[in-house]
């Protein structure tokens, strides 16, 4: 991973740095998803993971000089919006039934 393609304007900040940041953000988001009990917090962590991936794509887009990466990010953002809408609606409905959004307390589909 050595930088931009020939023919593309070089980057002032080394691309590796961006990649590391993105990976770290992803890891943090993953930790949050695994460790938190509140369903909404988990969802927030997932959003963070999505954004980390966005950053990754943008970095590669810049490195390759290819707009397709930005296109992907565009779609990811749109899909995340849709997903958030539906997911929060589910949580609302769930809350109505169980009066809680603690995932540990909603473990019904077990043996």
């Amino acid at each position, binding site marked *: 991973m050595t930088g931009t393609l020939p023919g593309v304007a070089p980057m002032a900040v080394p691309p590796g740095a*961006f990649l590391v940041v993105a990976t770290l953000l992803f890891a943090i988001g993953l930790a949050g998803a695994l460790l938190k009990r509140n369903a909404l917090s988990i969802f927030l962590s997932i959003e963070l993971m999505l954004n980390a991936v966005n950053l990754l794509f943008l970095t590669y887009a810049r490195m390759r000089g290819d707009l397709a990466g930005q296109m992907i990010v565009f779609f990811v953002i749109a899909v995340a*919006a849709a997903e958030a809408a539906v997911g929060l609606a589910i949580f609302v409905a769930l809350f109505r039934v169980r009066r809680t959004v603690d995932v540990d307390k909603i473990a019904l589909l077990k043996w």
Partner: protein
Amino acid sequence: MPAASGQLVVFAVASFLALAFALLMVVQRSPVRSVLSLVVTFFALSVLAILLSAPFLAALQIFVYAGAILVLFLFVIMLLNLKEEAADEDDRPVQRTLGLLAALALGGLLAGATLRAPAPGGVPSPRLIPAPDEIPALGRLLFSDYLLAFEALSLLLLVAAVGALLLSKRKFE
């Protein structure tokens, strides 16, 4: 474009903010505070996007993500009147430990994998950035190569809206 050293400084600050507030988001117990931390993170990410010659998407990030999605989150949190997570209610220590370990492991692995990955190859496409007319270029791409995806996306948004509406109804008439 700002000078190179300036970029480095901006990058450092922005990435620091992003990482710090992301950590804060995970560590916080109150969901409201988590959301707010995440907002800051998103702003930082926007800055990083600008650094990567993607101003349109940076703006999109703020408009859609920070402005719409996280506000929606806040609405729901207020609506459900969610309280702080109580610390002593967690009875799954194994999960916590393993989860932490797994996340660290995977994070490390991913970092390593990303860094060791070979440089992207191939011929640069004619769609170079930074382009002065980035937005028109994006628009052209959207309506030519990615037309199907675009249409599907609009359908998806429609479905999501209808679905959310249905799920939140109290009774089905």
